């Protein structure tokens, strides 16, 4: 009934139902519901399959991808959009309305009135009432009765003008026929706009609904389109094509505004033109309750024609009807399943077997051959009966062609074999599957890139497909060249991919956010890997494996004299062994080993029997845990300046900051909150503390805690002031203030000074010596010591 969320494959394409086939792909597509843009669905790919029309968003494919089941939709076409109208939910008959450009087939009612009874199916209209006016002599000629605009093309014979004998252009006659039909449809008052570009209609002949549709269609997408679509307001008197905003004909002066056009509509049209982006919906209406009457696919980069054609084809074929239907009985067929290796095989077999007479021996084989030939005849005959049926049985035909080809390859080596083979392959290609390139409209750079991106998706699907397990079989990594070979082989000789396209497509994986990635080794070797498989993971698995070798003797029996501390160092491995262990190819294994070597996890050992890789015991192992941890922490992406942060500095600052915080919060005075709760000020505090002879603030913090005199040393902004002895003697001058900047009385000043002095002596005496001797156990000896020890160890390691 309405938009449904769809499942996507790993390659971010809609996952197809059984029997569903992909018909067409177009990029740069937006989505509308009714007249409103659906936010988040304005830039994506449109996938047309035999069952559904899908929209897959470019930005957030998993979230904003929807589909319309074609069985729920009748559809209409307007300019660069394809509009799909939903059928009423309880459908009594299949509603399929394709008015489009065929003016003579009577347009069906809009499904905005779903309960209204359906009109009779389109009957072929006698068009004899229509007339066309000769562009040369202006004589009104009747349109020939056998002229059908739906099927007319350049080759249709047209009678010359009855008066002057000059043949009219086809478009002219078409126009006349369509306008005639439109005039008739106006009486039904439920017509839809035909494609305005190719068949401009007289606006006055259309009903209100009609005009509405047109104006919306134009204004929502683009003013330019609106103009091009509506620019031809034909004067009812002289047929001159006027600009739509004119009120009277430029040529003859006749009034162009008929009474049937409400004035506000024109005004609305003007308004719409001024601002291009159409109104948007707030949410993506994909719940089942939503009763939007139509969904529009807006094609911003062309492709709507091909989409439309294929859509029409899909609507005619109605493959979804077959989805739940029992298999078509085929009484004439005695199907051996090896000929038709396609979908119907199993079911056909179950039907076919009971009928088959049991004939054994050579006669049986012959009989079998005869049956097979008959069946093939039948398949080919059926297929060529008409083109629609051919498309339907394309699968079978291709399977057949393949079986022929394989037979030719295996059995005959004769002179005719080669020719027959080439002929066959040609015809197979001609018949072949709808190739990816065919699914894309037109040519040119836009469709080229679309082709590549589709190829990239296809590849990603191929790689990650669990059933095939291509990537898994290769140990999660394979070279691009291998993949190319496997991929083309899997395509069975049809629609091969050129190496250049292949490489380009592989390069697109990153951009398309697909679950595989292309990686270039230092030697230039290109490999394909799962996205989640990073270098770190590879190294970790390599190291794990090597660690496991410490105890296990393995098959590495070299010279018996060559002994090393096996328990300590484990043993070295060659690329060959690695390849065997991980299921990689040898080239990939050696590249991975060298990558790990480059990261410093492994080291090499070049002996007479080749290069072996060992765990890196050359770099000092004692440093590694600390350094590894720090690097891990400070190079993990969310950290600003990841990788640049001086790890030791950080290791120093964190405990010190904590200590400072503790120390300062113990001595918080009222205004001090300003300084003491803002960590960026602590740096300064640290510096002064250290300058004052403390190893770090942790020391002075405890000093301040437990000493009686430590409480109220003269300080400024949290820093301890020097007690100036000179000041003591010059009593006349103002002494230091106790704390902050407030003034205090004489006594208080004196007291402050004494305390300040005492404090300094208390700090210096026990500490100075220690600080000159380098880090040692400080007063408290607790965790601060541990911290210091760690820091100095890290520093020493650098």
């Amino acid at each position, binding site marked *: 009934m309405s938009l449904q969320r769809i499942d996507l494959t790993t390659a971010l394409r809609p996952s197809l139902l059984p029997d569903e086939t992909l018909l067409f792909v177009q990029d740069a597509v937006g989505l509308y519901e009714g007249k409103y843009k659906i936010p988040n669905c304005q830039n994506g790919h449109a996938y047309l399959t035999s069952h559904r029309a899908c929209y897959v968003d470019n930005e957030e494919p998993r979230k904003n991808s929807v589909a319309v089941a074609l069985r729920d939709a009748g559809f209409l076409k307007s300019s660069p959009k394809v509009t799909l109208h939903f059928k009423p939910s309880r459908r009594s008959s299949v509603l399929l309305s394709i008015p489009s450009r065929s003016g003579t087939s009577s347009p069906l009612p809009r499904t905005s009135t779903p309960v209204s009874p359906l009109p009779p199916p389109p009957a072929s209209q006698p068009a004899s009432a229509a007339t066309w006016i000769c562009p040369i002599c202006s004589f009104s000629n009747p349109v020939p009765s056998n002229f059908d605009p739906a099927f007319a093309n350049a080759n249709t014979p047209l009678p010359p003008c009855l008066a002057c004998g000059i043949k009219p252009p086809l478009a002219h006659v078409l126009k006349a026929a369509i306008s005639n039909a439109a005039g008739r449809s106006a009486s039904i008052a439920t017509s839809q706009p035909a494609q305005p570009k190719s068949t401009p209609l007289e606006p006055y002949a259309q009903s209100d609904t009609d005009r509405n549709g047109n104006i919306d269609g134009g204004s929502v997408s683009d003013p330019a389109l609106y103009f091009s679509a509506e620019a031809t307001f034909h004067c009812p008197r002289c047929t001159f094509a006027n600009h739509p905003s004119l009120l009277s004909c430029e040529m003859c002066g006749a009034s162009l505004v008929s009474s049937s056009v409400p004035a506000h509509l024109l005004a609305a049209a003007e308004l719409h033109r001024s601002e291009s982006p159409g109104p948007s919906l707030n949410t993506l209406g994909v719940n089942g309750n939503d009763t939007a009457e139509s969904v529009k696919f807006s094609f911003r980069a062309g492709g709507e024609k091909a989409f439309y054609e294929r859509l029409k084809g899909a609507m005619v074929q109605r493959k979804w009807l077959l989805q739940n239907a029992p298999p078509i009985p085929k009484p004439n067929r005695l199907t051996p399943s090896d000929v038709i290796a396609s979908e119907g095989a199993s079911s056909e077999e179950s039907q076919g077997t009971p009928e088959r007479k049991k004939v054994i021996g050579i006669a049986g084989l012959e009989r079998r051959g005869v049956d097979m030939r008959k069946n093939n005849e039948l398949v080919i005959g059926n297929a060529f009966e008409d083109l629609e049926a051919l498309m339907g049985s394309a699968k079978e035909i291709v399977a057949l062609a393949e079986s022929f080809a394989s037979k030719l390859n295996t059995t005959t080596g004769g002179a005719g074999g080669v020719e027959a083979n080439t002929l066959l392959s040609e015809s197979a290609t001609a018949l072949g599957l709808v190739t990816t390139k065919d699914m894309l409209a037109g040519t040119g750079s836009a469709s080229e890139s679309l082709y590549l991106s589709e190829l990239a998706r296809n590849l990603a699907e191929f790689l990650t497909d669990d059933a095939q397990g291509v990537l898994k079989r290769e140990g999660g990594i394979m070279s691009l060249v291998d993949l190319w070979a496997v991929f083309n082989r899997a395509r069975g000789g049809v629609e091969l991919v050129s190496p250049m396209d292949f490489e380009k497509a592989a390069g697109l994986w990153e951009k398309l956010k697909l679950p595989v990635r292309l990686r270039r080794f230092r030697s230039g070797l290109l490999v394909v890997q799962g996205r989640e498989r990073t270098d770190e993971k590879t190294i970790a698995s390599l190291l794990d494996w090597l660690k496991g070798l410490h105890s296990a003797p393995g098959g590495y029996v070299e010279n018996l004299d060559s002994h090393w501390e096996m328990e300590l160092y484990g043993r070295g491995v060659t690329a060959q062994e690695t390849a065997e262990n991980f299921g990689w190819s040898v080239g990939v294994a050696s590249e991975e080993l060298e990558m790990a070597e480059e990261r410093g996890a492994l080291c090499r050992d070049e002996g007479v029997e080749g290069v072996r890789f*060992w765990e890196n*015991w050359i770099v000092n192992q004692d440093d590694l845990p600390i350094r590894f941890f720090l690097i891990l922490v400070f190079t993990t992406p969310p950290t600003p300046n990841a990788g640049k942060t001086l790890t030791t500095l950080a290791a120093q600052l964190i405990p010190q900051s904590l200590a400072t915080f503790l120390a300062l919060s113990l001595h918080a005075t009222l205004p001090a909150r300003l300084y003491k709760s803002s960590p960026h000020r602590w740096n300064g505090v640290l510096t002064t503390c250290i300058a004052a002879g403390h190893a770090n603030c942790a020391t002075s913090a405890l000093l301040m805690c437990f000493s009686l005199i430590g409480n109220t040393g003269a300080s400024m902004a949290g820093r301890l002031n020097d007690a100036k002895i000179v000041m003591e003697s010059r009593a006349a001058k103002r002494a230091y203030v106790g704390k902050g900047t407030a003034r205090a009385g004489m006594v208080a000043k004196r007291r402050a000074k004494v305390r300040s002095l005492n404090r300094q002596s208390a700090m210096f005496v026990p500490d100075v010596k220690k600080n000159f001797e380098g880090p040692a156990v400080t007063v408290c000896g607790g965790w601060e010591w541990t911290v210091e020890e760690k820091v100095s160890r890290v520093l020493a390691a650098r």
Partner: protein
Amino acid sequence: MTAPLSPADQPFTFPREYHFPPFFTRQRNAITYTAQCQKWSKLILDYCRAKRIWRLPLVDAIDGELFWNKSLNRRLSLADAREIIDVMKAKEGRAEWASKDKNVALVYWRNPEEWATVIGDWVEETAQRGTVLTLYELTEGDLSASQGMCWLFFNFLGDFGRRVGTDGSVVEFHGMDAEVLQKSLNVLVKRGKAQVFGNEDQQGVKFF
């Protein structure tokens, strides 16, 4: 008393990494290679100190146990050894080429400045100030030879005697290479603590 066991005959205990096969291959990773060079440098210095080698002829030494771990069947190539000596020279000044073709290296387990200090201290302690000694006497003569016995004694004590004890350090220059001695004495001359005189063969030194 039998002939003293010369230091060159004493077995040298090699460090752990000497038994790690990749240690003998030049590493390509820069960080690993730096670590490798450091360890080699330390090994060479320790080895030369233990064996009292001042002058290391690389071409011969490459076949010796220092660069060739026979039990592992791994050896350092001549080019790699040269590279390591280069690094020792450039980074820490712990080595120098005695010849331009890079075949013989002077290994400074003490560099000339340190040797100058050692000799100066020895002069001080043995009260030789103002005496004149030939260079031969200084390194090969009875004075230092007897001290050499003393050195052996301290060597039995192990690391402690060699590194920290003042007596131990005094005797270290017994059998010292002439070129290194020359350089060390030049340092002393610059410090104003000695004067070197005489011609090429018969050089003498006077300590102040």
